[in-house]
């Protein structure tokens, strides 16, 4: 089926005029109409603008102009990435009717690359969560098992790609929000180095941790999307002016002599033994392909969760202070302005967002700042040093992306701490600011699992090289969830 093909395959079809961008866009819209009533990956679908954009690309193809890698390719954006004229809700009641007056830099760059925006996809409210259960607009289902979560917070983005409702998608990753849903849904997800992709127009959660990253069907697609979105942007003061490579240059099927470290803390307590053995089988594959693998230690790993949740919530409490019912967003009614602020925020935010604002405000409040926020920032230094030390010996580090496969709805949502602990394998990476990619690496009881590769800052290329080699020598990425006839029938009603 056309819609299940990779971006690079679709590009060939477009170039050889085997299919038009209009036909392709129509096929994705139809797929969304059939499966999305059940999966609920999308919050907004913009059929008419998408078709108009596709027609424009087709005119270009008709004139035999050279077609860019992403030109005419239909895609989806997480609903915290600003799209001018298209609602950007952050899956929150607070921004239910917010229509941005400007584009995020990544939106601009994908538009310049000629991609077709199909719509905006579901997420945990303000990207706070690991299951997409915190969306104000309801849950998104995992296409591999409809009773399970898709992961989060970029759950809609992962499902849209896994269920062929988009050729690729962009998500955001503050503590694992691209990688973990990619793992849960069996797709490729990259969290780039902090500063590699502009955050301008990404609705802020925790500014020192947030990064935008691509979710794709293949490693090559991921590199192609990074080529389009990465690079310095003066509108983001934390954007880094580094020399952006052509990421596809790293896609070689060869890892001979590459040094891979296996941090033992990522295989210990809390990690599902089946997941651990699945990843160990993947490690054996890499050894057989010529990698030099040995165990190592990141001794401060266990402190990453508390440090992360103090830093992320402190930054969130500050970032979310802007939602006061004055300039945009929801407004609650009250007699005076202070009452209006309090009503607006009480009624506009969901439970998890309020909980995090409370925790973050406490961590920053007078008398507790040193004990919690400053302490967490110091521990962040120790975690970063663990990685620096490991990278003196190794080219990359490897672990499971998540401790378990996708869990059931409601399984972790009653206790926030249990949910937070499920992020143990992903949050240290955000604290250190380094890049990491999750690639399909097998199945546990019918559910996909992801292998996480971590690299040195601005060394996405090495991650792509190892990921590509693994992909070329395994079949996991070719397996698709088979949506039952029942879903397809229910969806098309």
């Amino acid at each position: 089926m056309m819609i299940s093909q990779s971006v690079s395959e679709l590009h060939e079809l477009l170039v050889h005029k085997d299919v038009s961008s209009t036909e392709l866009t129509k096929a994705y819209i139809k797929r969304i109409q059939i499966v999305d009533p059940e999966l609920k990956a999308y919050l907004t679908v913009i059929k008419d603008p998408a078709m108009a954009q596709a027609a424009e690309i087709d005119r270009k193809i008709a004139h035999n102009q050279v077609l860019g890698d992403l030109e005419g390719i239909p895609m989806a954006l997480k609903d915290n990435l600003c799209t001018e004229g298209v609602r950007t809700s952050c899956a929150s009641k607070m921004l239910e009717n917010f229509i941005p007056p400007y584009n995020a830099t990544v939106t601009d760059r994908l538009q310049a690359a000629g991609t077709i925006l199909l719509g905006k996809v579901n997420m945990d409210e303000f990207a706070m969560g690991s299951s997409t259960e915190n969306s104000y607009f309801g849950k998104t289902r995992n296409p591999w098992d409809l009773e399970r979560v898709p992961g989060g917070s970029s759950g809609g983005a992962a499902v849209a790609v896994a269920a062929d409702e988009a050729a690729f998608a962009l998500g955001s990753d503050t503590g694992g929000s691209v990688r973990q849903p990619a793992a849960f849904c069996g797709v490729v997800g990259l969290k780039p180095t902090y500063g590699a992709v502009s955050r301008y127009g990404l609705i802020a959660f925790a500014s020192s941790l947030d990064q935008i990253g691509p979710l794709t069907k293949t490693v090559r697609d991921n590199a192609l999307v990074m080529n389009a979105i990465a690079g310095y942007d003066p509108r983001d003061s934390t954007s880094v002016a580094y020399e952006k490579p052509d990421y596809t240059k790293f896609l070689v099927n060869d890892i001979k002599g590459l040094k891979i470290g296996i941090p033992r803390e990522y295989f210990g307590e809390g990690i599902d033994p089946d997941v651990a053995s699945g990843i160990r089988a993947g490690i054996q594959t890499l050894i057989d392909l010529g990698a030099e693998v040995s165990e190592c230690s990141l001794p401060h790993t266990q402190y990453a969760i508390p440090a992360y949740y103090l830093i992320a919530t402190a930054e969130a409490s500050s970032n979310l202070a802007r939602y006061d019912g004055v300039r945009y967003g929801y407004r609650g009614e009250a007699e005076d302005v202070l009452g209006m602020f309090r009503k607006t925020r009480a009624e506009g935010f969901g439970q998890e967002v309020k909980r995090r604002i409370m925790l973050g405000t406490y961590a920053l409040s007078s008398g507790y700042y040193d004990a919690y926020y400053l302490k967490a920032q110091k521990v962040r230094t120790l975690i970063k040093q663990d990685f620096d030390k490991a990278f003196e010996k190794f080219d990359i580090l490897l672990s499971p992306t998540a401790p378990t496969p996708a869990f059931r709805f409601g399984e972790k949502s009653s206790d926030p701490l249990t949910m937070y602990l499920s992020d143990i394998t992903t949050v240290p990476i955000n604290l250190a600011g380094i890049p990491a990619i999750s690639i399909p690496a097998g199945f546990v009881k019918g559910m996909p699992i992801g292998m996480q590769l971590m690299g040195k800052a601005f060394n996405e290329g090495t991650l792509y090289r190892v990921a590509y080699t693994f992909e070329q020598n395994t079949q996991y990425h070719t397996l698709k969830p088979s949506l039952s006839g029942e879903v397809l029938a229910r969806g098309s009603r």
Partner: protein
Amino acid sequence: MTISREDVEYVAALARLELTEPEIKEYTEQLNSILDYAAMLERLDTDDVIPTAHAVPLHNVMREDQVSPSINHDKALKNAPDGEEGFFRVPRISLT
């Protein structure tokens, strides 16, 4: 118990959040359990450790002071819950 009910009410006031009675109870309990867990950080000696605010060291990013286009009044007010004649309107500032 690290946090009392009064602490929760105080923090809610700082955060401009009106909480319901069940929320106060729930957050008191949950913040305590999260902070109890976070207490493990105390085990680490960090006296001589420099805090990390950003993973990438960037300081004082400067640019030329040049005027560039920005969004106009109409666009800026378009999402306002209550806007009129080029202004954001809010309820009165004080009841007294």
